Protein backbone atom coordinates (compact mmCIF):
# COMPACT_ATOMS: atom_id res chain seq x y z
CA UNK A 1 0.00 0.00 0.00
CA UNK A 2 1.48 3.33 -1.01
CA UNK A 3 0.84 6.76 0.48
CA UNK A 4 -1.89 7.54 -2.01
CA UNK A 5 -3.76 4.33 -1.10
CA UNK A 6 -3.53 5.28 2.56
CA UNK A 7 -4.88 8.71 1.79
CA UNK A 8 -7.79 7.32 -0.24
CA UNK A 9 -8.63 4.78 2.44
CA UNK A 10 -8.76 7.39 5.22
CA UNK A 11 -10.59 9.91 3.07
CA UNK A 12 -13.25 7.37 2.15
CA UNK A 13 -13.86 6.35 5.77
CA UNK A 14 -14.18 9.95 6.89
CA UNK A 15 -16.51 10.83 4.05
CA UNK A 16 -18.69 7.82 4.86
CA UNK A 17 -18.82 8.90 8.50
CA UNK A 18 -20.38 12.23 7.65
CA UNK A 19 -24.11 12.26 6.95
CA UNK A 20 -25.05 14.89 4.41
CA UNK A 21 -25.96 17.74 6.71
CA UNK A 22 -25.19 20.58 4.35
CA UNK A 23 -28.75 21.89 4.25
CA UNK A 24 -28.79 22.05 8.01
CA UNK A 25 -25.50 23.96 8.04
CA UNK A 26 -26.76 26.39 5.43
CA UNK A 27 -29.97 26.95 7.37
CA UNK A 28 -27.99 27.70 10.51
CA UNK A 29 -25.79 30.12 8.63
CA UNK A 30 -28.84 31.92 7.26
CA UNK A 31 -30.51 32.00 10.66
CA UNK A 32 -27.48 33.55 12.20
CA UNK A 33 -27.11 35.98 9.34
CA UNK A 34 -30.76 36.97 9.67
CA UNK A 35 -30.35 37.56 13.38
CA UNK A 36 -27.28 39.67 12.78
CA UNK A 37 -29.02 41.72 10.15
CA UNK A 38 -32.02 42.25 12.37
CA UNK A 39 -29.89 43.24 15.32
CA UNK A 40 -28.13 45.77 13.17
CA UNK A 41 -31.33 47.22 11.81
CA UNK A 42 -32.93 47.35 15.25
CA UNK A 43 -29.89 49.16 16.51
CA UNK A 44 -30.20 51.74 13.80
CA UNK A 45 -33.81 52.16 14.83
CA UNK A 46 -35.18 52.11 11.32
CA UNK A 47 -37.76 49.40 11.74
CA UNK A 48 -39.54 50.43 14.87
CA UNK A 49 -42.88 50.05 13.16
CA UNK A 50 -42.19 46.53 12.13
CA UNK A 51 -41.57 45.41 15.67
CA UNK A 52 -44.82 43.57 15.89
CA UNK A 53 -44.94 41.17 18.81
CA UNK A 54 -47.10 38.76 16.81
CA UNK A 55 -44.36 38.17 14.28
CA UNK A 56 -41.81 35.71 15.60
CA UNK A 57 -38.36 37.16 15.25
CA UNK A 58 -36.92 34.35 13.24
CA UNK A 59 -39.51 34.31 10.49
CA UNK A 60 -39.15 38.05 10.22
CA UNK A 61 -35.45 37.68 9.73
CA UNK A 62 -35.95 35.08 7.05
CA UNK A 63 -38.49 37.27 5.29
CA UNK A 64 -35.98 40.07 5.41
CA UNK A 65 -33.34 37.92 3.75
CA UNK A 66 -35.78 36.98 0.99
CA UNK A 67 -36.61 40.62 0.51
CA UNK A 68 -32.97 41.66 0.36
CA UNK A 69 -32.13 38.89 -2.07
CA UNK A 70 -35.00 40.00 -4.26
CA UNK A 71 -33.84 43.60 -4.21
CA UNK A 72 -30.31 42.53 -5.05
CA UNK A 73 -31.56 40.53 -7.99
CA UNK A 74 -33.62 43.42 -9.25
CA UNK A 75 -30.79 45.90 -8.99
CA UNK A 76 -28.39 43.45 -10.61
CA UNK A 77 -29.96 43.83 -14.00
CA UNK A 78 -30.43 47.54 -13.54
CA UNK A 79 -26.78 48.13 -12.72
CA UNK A 80 -25.20 45.69 -15.10
CA UNK A 81 -23.25 48.32 -16.97
CA UNK A 82 -19.84 49.89 -16.46
CA UNK A 83 -19.99 52.99 -14.32
CA UNK A 84 -16.38 53.47 -13.19
CA UNK A 85 -13.02 52.18 -14.32
CA UNK A 86 -10.53 51.51 -11.55
CA UNK A 87 -6.87 51.03 -12.45
CA UNK A 88 -4.43 49.48 -10.01
CA UNK A 89 -0.72 49.81 -10.71
CA UNK A 90 2.15 48.38 -8.71
CA UNK A 91 4.14 46.84 -11.33
CA UNK A 92 1.33 44.51 -12.19
CA UNK A 93 -1.30 46.67 -13.86
CA UNK A 94 -4.92 45.70 -13.39
CA UNK A 95 -8.08 47.33 -14.66
CA UNK A 96 -11.43 46.78 -12.98
CA UNK A 97 -14.70 47.67 -14.64
CA UNK A 98 -17.12 48.56 -11.89
CA UNK A 99 -20.91 48.90 -11.94
CA UNK A 100 -23.02 51.57 -10.31
CA UNK A 101 -23.57 49.41 -7.22
CA UNK A 102 -19.79 48.92 -6.96
CA UNK A 103 -19.57 45.37 -8.18
CA UNK A 104 -16.75 44.22 -10.43
CA UNK A 105 -18.03 43.46 -13.91
CA UNK A 106 -14.65 42.56 -15.33
CA UNK A 107 -11.03 42.39 -14.17
CA UNK A 108 -8.41 42.76 -16.89
CA UNK A 109 -4.69 42.03 -16.57
CA UNK A 110 -2.91 44.80 -18.45
CA UNK A 111 0.56 43.22 -18.29
CA UNK A 112 2.15 39.82 -17.68
CA UNK A 113 2.77 40.41 -13.99
CA UNK A 114 -0.92 41.19 -13.61
CA UNK A 115 -1.81 37.87 -15.22
CA UNK A 116 0.18 36.13 -12.51
CA UNK A 117 -1.58 38.15 -9.83
CA UNK A 118 -5.08 37.53 -11.15
CA UNK A 119 -4.37 33.96 -12.21
CA UNK A 120 -7.70 32.19 -12.25
CA UNK A 121 -9.33 34.50 -9.72
CA UNK A 122 -12.95 34.93 -10.63
CA UNK A 123 -13.89 38.46 -9.58
CA UNK A 124 -16.96 38.90 -11.68
CA UNK A 125 -19.90 40.34 -9.76
CA UNK A 126 -17.84 40.56 -6.59
CA UNK A 127 -18.04 43.72 -4.45
CA UNK A 128 -15.16 46.06 -5.24
CA UNK A 129 -14.08 45.98 -1.56
CA UNK A 130 -13.82 42.21 -1.57
CA UNK A 131 -12.10 42.19 -4.95
CA UNK A 132 -9.52 44.71 -3.71
CA UNK A 133 -8.89 42.58 -0.66
CA UNK A 134 -8.26 39.55 -2.87
CA UNK A 135 -6.05 41.41 -5.33
CA UNK A 136 -3.94 43.11 -2.66
CA UNK A 137 -3.60 39.76 -0.88
CA UNK A 138 -2.28 38.23 -4.07
CA UNK A 139 0.07 41.19 -4.68
CA UNK A 140 1.49 40.74 -1.19
CA UNK A 141 1.75 36.96 -1.46
CA UNK A 142 3.50 37.16 -4.79
CA UNK A 143 5.96 39.71 -3.41
CA UNK A 144 4.91 42.71 -5.50
CA UNK A 145 4.12 44.70 -2.38
CA UNK A 146 6.29 44.41 0.69
CA UNK A 147 8.55 46.51 2.88
CA UNK A 148 11.04 46.84 0.03
CA UNK A 149 8.49 48.05 -2.49
CA UNK A 150 5.48 49.53 -0.78
CA UNK A 151 3.80 51.80 -3.33
CA UNK A 152 0.53 51.34 -5.15
CA UNK A 153 -1.29 53.69 -7.51
CA UNK A 154 -5.05 53.67 -7.84
CA UNK A 155 -6.75 55.70 -10.55
CA UNK A 156 -10.51 56.08 -10.85
CA UNK A 157 -12.35 57.15 -13.95
CA UNK A 158 -16.00 58.14 -13.88
CA UNK A 159 -17.97 60.46 -16.15
CA UNK A 160 -19.16 62.19 -13.03
CA UNK A 161 -15.97 63.61 -11.50
CA UNK A 162 -17.55 64.00 -8.09
CA UNK A 163 -18.57 60.33 -7.98
CA UNK A 164 -15.14 59.25 -9.16
CA UNK A 165 -13.60 61.33 -6.40
CA UNK A 166 -15.79 59.67 -3.76
CA UNK A 167 -14.82 56.21 -4.99
CA UNK A 168 -11.14 57.21 -5.13
CA UNK A 169 -11.21 58.31 -1.52
CA UNK A 170 -13.05 55.23 -0.38
CA UNK A 171 -10.78 52.80 -2.23
CA UNK A 172 -7.52 54.45 -1.23
CA UNK A 173 -8.58 54.29 2.41
CA UNK A 174 -9.55 50.67 1.95
CA UNK A 175 -6.13 49.84 0.45
CA UNK A 176 -4.29 51.58 3.29
CA UNK A 177 -6.27 49.57 5.79
CA UNK A 178 -5.69 46.25 3.98
CA UNK A 179 -1.94 46.95 3.85
CA UNK A 180 -2.02 47.98 7.50
CA UNK A 181 -3.58 44.64 8.39
CA UNK A 182 -0.66 42.96 6.66
CA UNK A 183 1.71 45.11 8.73
CA UNK A 184 2.97 46.83 5.62
CA UNK A 185 3.66 50.52 5.86
CA UNK A 186 2.37 51.31 2.40
CA UNK A 187 2.43 54.39 0.24
CA UNK A 188 -0.88 54.80 -1.59
CA UNK A 189 -1.06 57.20 -4.52
CA UNK A 190 -4.52 57.91 -5.87
CA UNK A 191 -6.14 60.08 -8.49
CA UNK A 192 -9.37 60.71 -10.31
CA UNK A 193 -8.77 60.66 -14.04
CA UNK A 194 -10.10 63.32 -16.38
CA UNK A 195 -9.56 63.72 -20.11
CA UNK A 196 -5.86 64.24 -20.78
CA UNK A 197 -4.67 63.89 -24.37
CA UNK A 198 -0.97 63.93 -23.52
CA UNK A 199 -1.32 61.16 -20.95
CA UNK A 200 -3.53 59.10 -23.27
CA UNK A 201 -0.91 59.31 -26.02
CA UNK A 202 1.84 58.21 -23.66
CA UNK A 203 -0.29 55.34 -22.32
CA UNK A 204 -1.09 54.10 -25.82
CA UNK A 205 2.49 54.44 -27.02
CA UNK A 206 3.92 52.18 -24.32
CA UNK A 207 0.92 50.08 -23.42
CA UNK A 208 0.75 51.35 -19.85
CA UNK A 209 -2.25 52.49 -17.87
CA UNK A 210 -3.52 56.04 -18.11
CA UNK A 211 -2.96 56.43 -14.38
CA UNK A 212 0.70 55.46 -14.60
CA UNK A 213 1.15 57.71 -17.65
CA UNK A 214 -0.09 60.67 -15.60
CA UNK A 215 2.42 59.91 -12.84
CA UNK A 216 5.25 59.62 -15.39
CA UNK A 217 4.34 62.98 -16.93
CA UNK A 218 4.54 64.60 -13.50
CA UNK A 219 7.97 63.07 -12.87
CA UNK A 220 9.21 64.13 -16.33
CA UNK A 221 8.11 67.69 -15.61
CA UNK A 222 10.26 67.78 -12.51
CA UNK A 223 13.49 66.71 -14.20
CA UNK A 224 14.18 67.80 -17.75
CA UNK A 225 17.06 65.35 -18.16
CA UNK A 226 14.79 62.33 -17.90
CA UNK A 227 13.38 60.64 -20.98
CA UNK A 228 10.11 58.71 -21.32
CA UNK A 229 12.01 55.51 -21.99
CA UNK A 230 13.87 55.86 -18.70
CA UNK A 231 10.58 55.73 -16.85
CA UNK A 232 7.97 53.60 -18.59
CA UNK A 233 9.35 50.30 -17.30
CA UNK A 234 9.69 51.48 -13.72
CA UNK A 235 7.37 50.20 -11.01
CA UNK A 236 5.14 52.59 -9.08
CA UNK A 237 7.50 52.37 -6.12
CA UNK A 238 10.44 53.33 -8.31
CA UNK A 239 8.52 56.27 -9.75
CA UNK A 240 7.49 57.21 -6.23
CA UNK A 241 11.15 57.14 -5.11
CA UNK A 242 12.14 59.38 -8.03
CA UNK A 243 9.30 61.81 -7.47
CA UNK A 244 10.31 62.19 -3.83
CA UNK A 245 13.96 62.63 -4.75
CA UNK A 246 13.13 65.20 -7.45
CA UNK A 247 10.55 66.90 -5.24
CA UNK A 248 8.05 66.37 -8.05
CA UNK A 249 4.88 68.40 -7.92
CA UNK A 250 2.18 65.73 -8.10
CA UNK A 251 -0.58 67.70 -9.78
CA UNK A 252 -3.68 65.56 -9.52
CA UNK A 253 -2.32 62.75 -7.39
CA UNK A 254 -3.04 62.41 -3.70
CA UNK A 255 -0.41 60.60 -1.72
CA UNK A 256 -0.12 58.88 1.61
CA UNK A 257 3.05 57.44 3.14
CA UNK A 258 6.53 57.48 1.65
CA UNK A 259 8.18 55.26 -0.93
CA UNK A 260 10.37 52.49 0.41
CA UNK A 261 14.06 52.69 -0.47
CA UNK A 262 14.95 49.62 1.55
CA UNK A 263 15.94 47.55 -1.48
CA UNK A 264 18.66 50.07 -2.39
CA UNK A 265 22.24 50.18 -1.19
CA UNK A 266 21.89 53.72 0.22
CA UNK A 267 23.54 57.04 -0.62
CA UNK A 268 26.53 56.48 1.67
CA UNK A 269 27.39 53.19 0.04
CA UNK A 270 26.93 54.62 -3.47
CA UNK A 271 29.26 57.48 -2.62
CA UNK A 272 31.83 55.04 -1.25
CA UNK A 273 31.73 52.89 -4.41
CA UNK A 274 32.27 55.92 -6.64
CA UNK A 275 35.07 57.39 -4.54
CA UNK A 276 36.86 54.04 -4.30
CA UNK A 277 36.64 53.57 -8.02
CA UNK A 278 37.93 57.08 -8.71
CA UNK A 279 40.57 56.68 -5.98
CA UNK A 280 39.55 60.03 -4.58
CA UNK A 281 39.59 60.62 -0.85
CA UNK A 282 38.79 64.32 -0.54
CA UNK A 283 35.99 65.10 -2.98
CA UNK A 284 34.49 68.55 -3.32
CA UNK A 285 30.92 69.46 -4.20
CA UNK A 286 29.76 65.90 -3.66
CA UNK A 287 26.15 65.21 -4.63
CA UNK A 288 24.25 61.93 -4.57
CA UNK A 289 20.71 61.63 -5.90
CA UNK A 290 18.32 59.06 -7.24
CA UNK A 291 18.00 59.01 -11.00
CA UNK A 292 16.66 56.65 -13.64
CA UNK A 293 18.43 55.24 -16.63
CA UNK A 294 16.75 52.99 -19.13
CA UNK A 295 14.27 51.44 -16.73
CA UNK A 296 16.64 51.14 -13.78
CA UNK A 297 16.88 53.20 -10.63
CA UNK A 298 20.44 54.47 -10.20
CA UNK A 299 22.38 56.73 -7.90
CA UNK A 300 23.85 59.67 -9.69
CA UNK A 301 27.09 60.56 -7.88
CA UNK A 302 28.89 63.77 -8.83
CA UNK A 303 32.01 65.35 -7.30
CA UNK A 304 35.19 67.07 -8.29
CA UNK A 305 38.78 67.55 -7.22
CA UNK A 306 41.15 70.37 -8.04
CA UNK A 307 41.89 68.74 -11.41
CA UNK A 308 38.89 66.68 -12.47
CA UNK A 309 35.12 66.48 -12.47
CA UNK A 310 33.59 63.06 -11.89
CA UNK A 311 30.19 61.69 -12.73
CA UNK A 312 29.00 58.18 -11.81
CA UNK A 313 25.83 56.20 -12.32
CA UNK A 314 25.51 53.32 -9.91
CA UNK A 315 22.82 50.64 -9.98
CA UNK A 316 20.85 51.43 -6.82
CA UNK A 317 20.08 47.80 -6.09
CA UNK A 318 23.33 46.04 -6.91
CA UNK A 319 25.95 48.77 -6.51
CA UNK A 320 27.32 48.00 -9.97
CA UNK A 321 28.88 50.95 -11.76
CA UNK A 322 26.81 51.48 -14.90
CA UNK A 323 28.60 54.51 -16.16
CA UNK A 324 31.57 56.60 -15.09
CA UNK A 325 32.92 59.75 -16.56
CA UNK A 326 35.92 61.88 -15.67
CA UNK A 327 37.07 65.07 -17.29
CA UNK A 328 39.60 67.81 -16.63
CA UNK A 329 37.90 70.67 -14.92
CA UNK A 330 39.88 73.37 -16.79
CA UNK A 331 38.44 72.57 -20.22
CA UNK A 332 41.40 70.33 -20.93
CA UNK A 333 39.44 67.91 -23.07
CA UNK A 334 40.64 64.47 -22.13
CA UNK A 335 37.61 62.27 -21.68
CA UNK A 336 38.08 58.90 -20.18
CA UNK A 337 34.92 56.95 -20.77
CA UNK A 338 36.25 53.52 -20.12
CA UNK A 339 33.22 52.11 -18.27
CA UNK A 340 30.59 53.46 -20.53
CA UNK A 341 29.38 50.20 -21.95
CA UNK A 342 28.98 48.41 -18.75
CA UNK A 343 25.22 48.08 -18.88
CA UNK A 344 25.51 44.34 -19.04
CA UNK A 345 27.12 44.25 -15.67
CA UNK A 346 24.21 43.31 -13.53
CA UNK A 347 23.95 41.27 -10.38
CA UNK A 348 20.22 40.71 -10.56
CA UNK A 349 19.74 37.15 -9.45
CA UNK A 350 16.34 36.73 -11.06
CA UNK A 351 17.93 36.13 -14.44
CA UNK A 352 17.73 32.49 -13.62
CA UNK A 353 16.15 30.45 -16.35
CA UNK A 354 14.67 27.21 -15.19
CA UNK A 355 14.26 26.02 -18.74
CA UNK A 356 17.88 24.96 -18.42
CA UNK A 357 16.68 22.18 -16.24
CA UNK A 358 14.14 21.14 -18.80
CA UNK A 359 16.80 20.68 -21.38
CA UNK A 360 19.09 18.77 -19.08
CA UNK A 361 16.35 16.54 -17.82
CA UNK A 362 14.74 15.96 -21.17
CA UNK A 363 17.99 14.92 -22.72
CA UNK A 364 18.30 12.24 -20.08
CA UNK A 365 15.10 10.48 -20.96
CA UNK A 366 13.47 9.38 -24.12
CA UNK A 367 9.94 8.32 -23.31
CA UNK A 368 6.89 10.21 -22.27
CA UNK A 369 4.65 7.37 -21.18
CA UNK A 370 2.60 7.55 -18.04
CA UNK A 371 4.64 5.01 -16.13
CA UNK A 372 6.90 5.78 -13.20
CA UNK A 373 9.91 5.29 -15.41
CA UNK A 374 9.16 8.60 -17.10
CA UNK A 375 9.46 10.44 -13.80
CA UNK A 376 12.71 12.05 -12.83
CA UNK A 377 14.13 10.52 -9.67
CA UNK A 378 13.39 12.03 -6.28
CA UNK A 379 17.07 12.79 -5.80
CA UNK A 380 17.07 14.63 -9.11
CA UNK A 381 14.04 16.65 -7.95
CA UNK A 382 15.88 17.48 -4.76
CA UNK A 383 18.95 18.51 -6.73
CA UNK A 384 16.90 20.85 -8.93
CA UNK A 385 15.35 22.55 -5.92
CA UNK A 386 18.63 22.90 -4.03
CA UNK A 387 20.44 24.24 -7.04
CA UNK A 388 17.69 26.78 -7.69
CA UNK A 389 17.74 27.85 -4.07
CA UNK A 390 21.53 27.99 -4.07
CA UNK A 391 21.60 25.82 -0.98
CA UNK A 392 24.43 23.36 -0.42
CA UNK A 393 23.64 21.72 2.89
CA UNK A 394 19.93 21.69 3.59
CA UNK A 395 18.27 20.31 6.70
CA UNK A 396 14.87 18.63 7.13
CA UNK A 397 14.67 17.59 3.51
CA UNK A 398 11.36 16.04 2.50
CA UNK A 399 10.68 14.91 -1.03
CA UNK A 400 7.32 13.54 -2.00
CA UNK A 401 5.90 12.38 -5.31
CA UNK A 402 2.26 13.17 -6.01
CA UNK A 403 1.26 10.76 -8.75
CA UNK A 404 -2.07 12.40 -9.39
CA UNK A 405 -0.55 15.73 -10.18
CA UNK A 406 2.77 14.39 -11.50
CA UNK A 407 4.55 16.68 -9.11
CA UNK A 408 7.37 16.37 -6.65
CA UNK A 409 7.03 18.43 -3.52
CA UNK A 410 10.48 19.26 -2.12
CA UNK A 411 10.71 20.89 1.29
CA UNK A 412 13.83 21.79 3.26
CA UNK A 413 15.30 24.37 5.56
CA UNK A 414 18.59 26.25 5.33
CA UNK A 415 20.02 29.54 6.56
CA UNK A 416 17.02 30.29 8.76
CA UNK A 417 14.58 29.88 5.87
CA UNK A 418 12.07 27.28 4.80
CA UNK A 419 11.96 26.36 1.16
CA UNK A 420 9.08 24.71 -0.55
CA UNK A 421 9.24 23.63 -4.19
CA UNK A 422 6.77 22.03 -6.55
CA UNK A 423 8.53 20.37 -9.43
CA UNK A 424 7.02 18.76 -12.50
CA UNK A 425 7.91 15.11 -11.98
CA UNK A 426 8.31 14.50 -15.68
CA UNK A 427 10.10 17.53 -17.02
CA UNK A 428 11.88 18.68 -13.87
CA UNK A 429 10.50 22.15 -14.41
CA UNK A 430 9.94 24.21 -11.26
CA UNK A 431 6.20 24.89 -11.10
CA UNK A 432 6.15 26.95 -7.95
CA UNK A 433 8.36 27.76 -5.03
CA UNK A 434 8.08 29.59 -1.79
CA UNK A 435 10.69 30.79 0.68
CA UNK A 436 9.75 31.83 4.18
CA UNK A 437 11.83 33.04 7.06
CA UNK A 438 11.61 30.80 10.12
CA UNK A 439 10.18 32.84 12.95
CA UNK A 440 11.17 30.80 15.94
CA UNK A 441 14.45 29.06 16.72
Amino acid sequence: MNTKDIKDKINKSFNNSIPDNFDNILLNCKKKEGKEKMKKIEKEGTIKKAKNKFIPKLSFALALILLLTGVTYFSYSKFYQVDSIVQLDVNPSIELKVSKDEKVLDAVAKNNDAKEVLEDMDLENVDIDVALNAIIGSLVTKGYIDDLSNSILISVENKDHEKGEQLRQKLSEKISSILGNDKINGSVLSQTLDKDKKAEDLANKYGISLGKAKLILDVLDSNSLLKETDLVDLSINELNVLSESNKTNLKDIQKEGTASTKSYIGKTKAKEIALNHAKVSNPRNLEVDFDADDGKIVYEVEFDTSKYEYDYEINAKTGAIIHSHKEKSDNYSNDIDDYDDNDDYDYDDDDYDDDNYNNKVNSNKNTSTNSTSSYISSSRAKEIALSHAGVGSPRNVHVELDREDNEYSVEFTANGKEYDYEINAKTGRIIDYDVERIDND
Partner: protein
Amino acid sequence: MKNGIEKLNSKLIENLFLKISQNDEEAFHELYTLTKSSIYGYSLSILKNHEQSLDNMQEVFIKIYENIDSYKYQGKPMNWIFTITKSLALTKIRKQKKITISEIDENTLINPDISVEDKATIKILLESLSDEERQIIIMHLIGKLKHIEIANILEMKLSTVLSKYHRAIKKLKEEWR
Protein backbone atom coordinates in the same frame (compact mmCIF):
# COMPACT_ATOMS: atom_id res chain seq x y z
CA MET B 1 -8.25 18.54 -12.65
CA LYS B 2 -9.59 15.04 -13.00
CA ASN B 3 -11.36 14.84 -9.71
CA GLY B 4 -12.21 17.88 -7.63
CA ILE B 5 -12.60 15.90 -4.46
CA GLU B 6 -9.13 14.48 -4.72
CA LYS B 7 -7.29 17.71 -4.88
CA LEU B 8 -7.54 20.66 -2.53
CA ASN B 9 -6.25 23.43 -4.69
CA SER B 10 -5.67 26.66 -2.78
CA LYS B 11 -6.65 28.84 -5.69
CA LEU B 12 -9.83 26.89 -6.22
CA ILE B 13 -10.78 27.27 -2.58
CA GLU B 14 -9.99 30.97 -2.55
CA ASN B 15 -12.22 31.39 -5.58
CA LEU B 16 -14.97 29.62 -3.69
CA PHE B 17 -14.39 32.02 -0.78
CA LEU B 18 -14.89 34.96 -3.14
CA LYS B 19 -18.16 33.52 -4.32
CA ILE B 20 -19.31 32.63 -0.81
CA SER B 21 -18.74 36.21 0.26
CA GLN B 22 -21.31 37.09 -2.42
CA ASN B 23 -23.77 34.63 -0.83
CA ASP B 24 -23.25 31.99 -3.50
CA GLU B 25 -24.77 28.86 -1.94
CA GLU B 26 -23.51 26.54 -4.64
CA ALA B 27 -19.95 27.63 -3.94
CA PHE B 28 -20.54 27.03 -0.26
CA HIS B 29 -21.79 23.53 -1.05
CA GLU B 30 -18.72 22.85 -3.15
CA LEU B 31 -16.48 23.99 -0.33
CA TYR B 32 -18.36 21.65 1.99
CA THR B 33 -17.87 18.70 -0.37
CA LEU B 34 -14.19 19.45 -0.79
CA THR B 35 -13.23 20.02 2.81
CA LYS B 36 -15.68 18.15 5.05
CA SER B 37 -13.54 15.04 5.47
CA SER B 38 -10.46 17.06 6.48
CA ILE B 39 -12.45 19.09 8.98
CA TYR B 40 -14.29 16.09 10.38
CA GLY B 41 -11.12 14.01 10.53
CA TYR B 42 -9.13 16.70 12.24
CA SER B 43 -11.95 17.32 14.71
CA LEU B 44 -12.15 13.60 15.44
CA SER B 45 -8.40 13.53 16.08
CA ILE B 46 -8.82 16.07 18.82
CA LEU B 47 -12.27 15.29 20.22
CA LYS B 48 -12.34 11.50 19.79
CA ASN B 49 -16.09 11.53 19.57
CA HIS B 50 -18.08 11.15 16.38
CA GLU B 51 -21.11 13.28 17.32
CA GLN B 52 -19.00 16.05 18.75
CA SER B 53 -16.81 16.02 15.67
CA LEU B 54 -19.87 16.40 13.46
CA ASP B 55 -21.02 19.30 15.63
CA ASN B 56 -17.58 20.82 15.43
CA MET B 57 -17.51 20.45 11.67
CA GLN B 58 -20.86 22.21 11.41
CA GLU B 59 -19.63 25.04 13.61
CA VAL B 60 -16.51 25.38 11.48
CA PHE B 61 -18.59 25.84 8.34
CA ILE B 62 -20.80 28.40 10.05
CA LYS B 63 -17.72 30.24 11.24
CA ILE B 64 -16.26 30.23 7.73
CA TYR B 65 -19.52 31.60 6.36
CA GLU B 66 -19.68 34.32 9.00
CA ASN B 67 -16.06 35.38 8.77
CA ILE B 68 -15.42 34.96 5.08
CA ASP B 69 -14.94 38.71 4.63
CA SER B 70 -12.07 38.77 7.09
CA TYR B 71 -10.13 36.05 5.26
CA LYS B 72 -6.83 37.30 3.85
CA TYR B 73 -6.22 36.08 0.33
CA GLN B 74 -2.67 34.79 0.64
CA GLY B 75 -2.98 31.38 -0.87
CA LYS B 76 -3.42 29.47 2.38
CA PRO B 77 -7.14 28.80 2.80
CA MET B 78 -6.72 25.33 4.35
CA ASN B 79 -4.39 26.78 6.93
CA TRP B 80 -7.17 29.14 7.95
CA ILE B 81 -9.77 26.38 8.01
CA PHE B 82 -7.64 24.08 10.16
CA THR B 83 -6.83 26.90 12.55
CA ILE B 84 -10.57 27.54 13.02
CA THR B 85 -11.20 23.80 13.42
CA LYS B 86 -8.53 23.48 16.08
CA SER B 87 -9.66 26.50 18.04
CA LEU B 88 -13.34 25.43 18.07
CA ALA B 89 -12.43 21.87 19.05
CA LEU B 90 -10.25 23.05 21.91
CA THR B 91 -13.06 25.30 23.16
CA LYS B 92 -15.32 22.25 23.20
CA ILE B 93 -12.78 20.26 25.20
CA ARG B 94 -12.41 23.04 27.74
CA LYS B 95 -16.17 23.27 28.23
CA GLN B 96 -16.49 19.52 28.44
CA LYS B 97 -13.85 19.20 31.14
CA LYS B 98 -15.82 21.53 33.34
CA ILE B 99 -18.82 19.24 33.24
CA THR B 100 -17.38 15.76 33.40
CA ILE B 101 -14.26 13.93 32.42
CA SER B 102 -15.72 11.06 30.47
CA GLU B 103 -13.63 8.16 29.33
CA ILE B 104 -13.16 7.52 25.68
CA ASP B 105 -15.93 5.22 24.64
CA GLU B 106 -15.62 3.15 21.49
CA ASN B 107 -19.32 3.42 20.81
CA THR B 108 -19.24 7.17 20.69
CA LEU B 109 -15.87 7.30 18.97
CA ILE B 110 -16.93 6.12 15.56
CA ASN B 111 -20.11 6.62 13.58
CA PRO B 112 -22.07 3.37 14.29
CA ASP B 113 -23.74 3.48 10.88
CA ILE B 114 -20.67 3.01 8.69
CA SER B 115 -19.31 -0.24 7.25
CA VAL B 116 -17.12 -2.60 9.23
CA GLU B 117 -14.22 -1.77 6.96
CA ASP B 118 -14.55 1.98 7.48
CA LYS B 119 -14.84 1.44 11.23
CA ALA B 120 -11.65 -0.59 11.20
CA THR B 121 -9.84 2.11 9.25
CA ILE B 122 -10.78 4.84 11.71
CA LYS B 123 -10.07 2.58 14.67
CA ILE B 124 -6.54 1.92 13.47
CA LEU B 125 -6.03 5.59 12.82
CA LEU B 126 -7.13 6.39 16.36
CA GLU B 127 -5.37 3.53 18.12
CA SER B 128 -2.08 3.02 16.34
CA LEU B 129 -1.13 6.66 16.00
CA SER B 130 -0.42 9.27 18.63
CA ASP B 131 -2.62 12.38 18.65
CA GLU B 132 0.04 14.43 16.96
CA GLU B 133 0.88 11.81 14.36
CA ARG B 134 -2.79 11.51 13.48
CA GLN B 135 -3.30 15.25 13.15
CA ILE B 136 -0.24 15.54 10.93
CA ILE B 137 -1.39 12.68 8.72
CA ILE B 138 -4.86 14.18 8.30
CA MET B 139 -3.66 17.69 7.64
CA HIS B 140 -1.02 16.60 5.14
CA LEU B 141 -2.76 13.75 3.31
CA ILE B 142 -6.37 14.89 3.39
CA GLY B 143 -5.98 18.63 3.91
CA LYS B 144 -2.97 18.88 1.58
CA LEU B 145 -1.13 21.22 3.92
CA LYS B 146 2.64 21.55 3.62
CA HIS B 147 4.60 20.19 6.54
CA ILE B 148 5.78 23.65 7.38
CA GLU B 149 2.21 24.92 7.58
CA ILE B 150 1.35 22.05 9.88
CA ALA B 151 4.38 22.90 12.00
CA ASN B 152 2.99 26.42 12.40
CA ILE B 153 -0.50 25.27 13.37
CA LEU B 154 0.75 22.66 15.84
CA GLU B 155 3.49 24.98 17.08
CA MET B 156 6.16 22.37 16.46
CA LYS B 157 9.49 22.40 14.73
CA LEU B 158 9.43 21.38 11.10
CA SER B 159 11.90 18.58 11.79
CA THR B 160 9.57 17.17 14.47
CA VAL B 161 6.59 17.26 12.13
CA LEU B 162 8.59 15.50 9.42
CA SER B 163 9.83 12.72 11.64
CA LYS B 164 6.37 12.17 13.14
CA TYR B 165 4.86 12.10 9.66
CA HIS B 166 7.31 9.49 8.44
CA ARG B 167 6.84 7.36 11.53
CA ALA B 168 3.06 7.54 11.13
CA ILE B 169 3.15 6.60 7.44
CA LYS B 170 5.38 3.66 8.30
CA LYS B 171 2.98 2.48 10.99
CA LEU B 172 -0.04 2.71 8.69
CA LYS B 173 1.80 0.89 5.91
CA GLU B 174 2.52 -1.92 8.34
CA GLU B 175 -1.10 -2.04 9.51
CA TRP B 176 -2.51 -2.07 6.00
CA ARG B 177 0.13 -4.14 4.22
